[in-house]
């Protein structure tokens, strides 16, 4: 041991290194694939959760039936991706203005589609519902169809009264079908309820005839 104090070399690098690790290609690929899949999945979730949208909120209190105007609306930023709530985005503002509120809402409430009432008929027009018995209208009636509302004269009147033949039935009223529904009342087993959009001046005529059951619908070309 007498020579141990001589020439002890510094702890330099030795001439032997560990053998390089063997890389198993399938395992390495699997690992890479897992990394990519996790990154993609996480990225998707993050972008969805982080997707911010400008949505419409009410700037002050609105009662049921109030027509919503631009001054009623404000903007709020929310993440819409994962909430599942059908917010109305700022870009859809034009579809909201002019529609009535279906329910009373406090200031600051975000608007959703169900908060809005149906679009009111344009000025000068009215929507009336008419119960049409089978045979009084073509069965192919659908919303959007242009029809003539024909007021028929009851046979008892036409044979009995003298004035009736002289005055022919009222001229047909041009109308547009807005909805066709089957009656929800179980007492009415036949016929359909047709919603008609027609000039406000003809509402009285049509509703009176409809109440008596003297209405027929004729499908006509649009605009006639």
């Amino acid at each position, binding site marked *: 041991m007498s020579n141990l104090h001589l020439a002890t*070399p510094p702890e330099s690098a030795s001439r*032997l290194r*560990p*053998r390089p690790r063997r890389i198993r290609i399938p395992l390495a690929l699997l690992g890479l694939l897992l990394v990519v899949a996790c990154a993609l999945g996480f990225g998707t979730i993050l972008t969805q959760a982080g997707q911010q949208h400008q949505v419409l909120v009410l700037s002050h209190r609105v009662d049921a039936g109030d027509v919503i105007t631009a001054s009623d609306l404000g903007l709020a930023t929310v993440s819409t991706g994962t909430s599942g709530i059908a917010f109305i985005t700022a870009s859809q503002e034009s579809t909201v203005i002019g529609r009535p509120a279906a329910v009373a809402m406090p200031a600051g409430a975000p608007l959703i589609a169900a908060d809005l009432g149906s679009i009111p008929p344009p000025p000068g027009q009215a929507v009336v519902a008419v119960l049409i018995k089978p045979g009084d209208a073509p069965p192919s009636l659908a919303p959007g169809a242009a029809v003539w509302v024909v007021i028929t004269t009851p046979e008892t009147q036409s044979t009995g009264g003298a004035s009736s033949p002289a005055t022919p039935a009222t001229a047909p009223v041009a109308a547009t079908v807005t909805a066709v529904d089957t009656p929800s009342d179980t007492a009415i087993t036949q016929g359909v309820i047709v919603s008609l959009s027609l000039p406000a001046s003809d509402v009285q005529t049509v509703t009176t005839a409809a109440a008596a059951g003297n209405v027929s619908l004729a499908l006509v070309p649009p605009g006639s």
Partner: protein
Amino acid sequence: MDIVPLLAAKGSMGVTTAALTLAAVWPQRRGAPVVVECDPGGGDVAARFGLEVIPGVVSLAAELERSGPADPAGPGEQLGRHTQELPGGLRVLVAPTSPEEMRLPLDRLAEDLPRLALGEVDLIVDCGRLEAPAMRQRTAVLRLIQRCGLMVVVVRPELSALQHLNVWLPALRSLDVEVLALLSGRGPYSPEEIASTMDLRVIGALPHDRAAADVVGGASGSRPDRSALFRAARPAAAAIAAVLGRSLAAPVAPTALEEAVP
């Protein structure tokens, strides 16, 4: 330059690991050594590091057999052609795994290694185990040891291994070589105690360092430079180099080795 033969006493394993470790930390001023596998029981390094057996001991012995000892490029060049490089740059002359394939090349190498060592590199020679049954047929290895002037015996510092070494010591000393002991692993005796009791030069103690030994055994892992094994090996390598640095006695004539075997 010089040849350092390493042998393991019976019951003491790790002579290949010791040879590689000493070579890995061999003093810079003596240049990079070459590890030579001369274990009559067959080589380990090729299998440990996933190397081919050729080039190695077999190809070098075949070339020596064919062309004779003179090589125009010089002995160092001739040896270098047959070595293989381990990760980190350590050069090794690998041996075949089978003892049968090792027999003839070993005879040739024992004759020619001293001449090949005339080049610029030190040779650290793994000579396998120090065992009586094998040593009778191992005259090639003993002849080699005799020409080197020193030998390093790797011994575990416990009673049975030390007793086996003690039986061998008179025979080894009769070869007129300096016997250096390198302790390996755990045991109840301190280096000083062994040195004084057996009148033996103990040049160091390599600790049981599993991680570093695995790396020397060809496993992947962290770099062993600062490991306990390599830190302990540096002073041991320096001590061997210091012995080599002294002028060694001229090679003595071979004695009758059969008589030397206890």
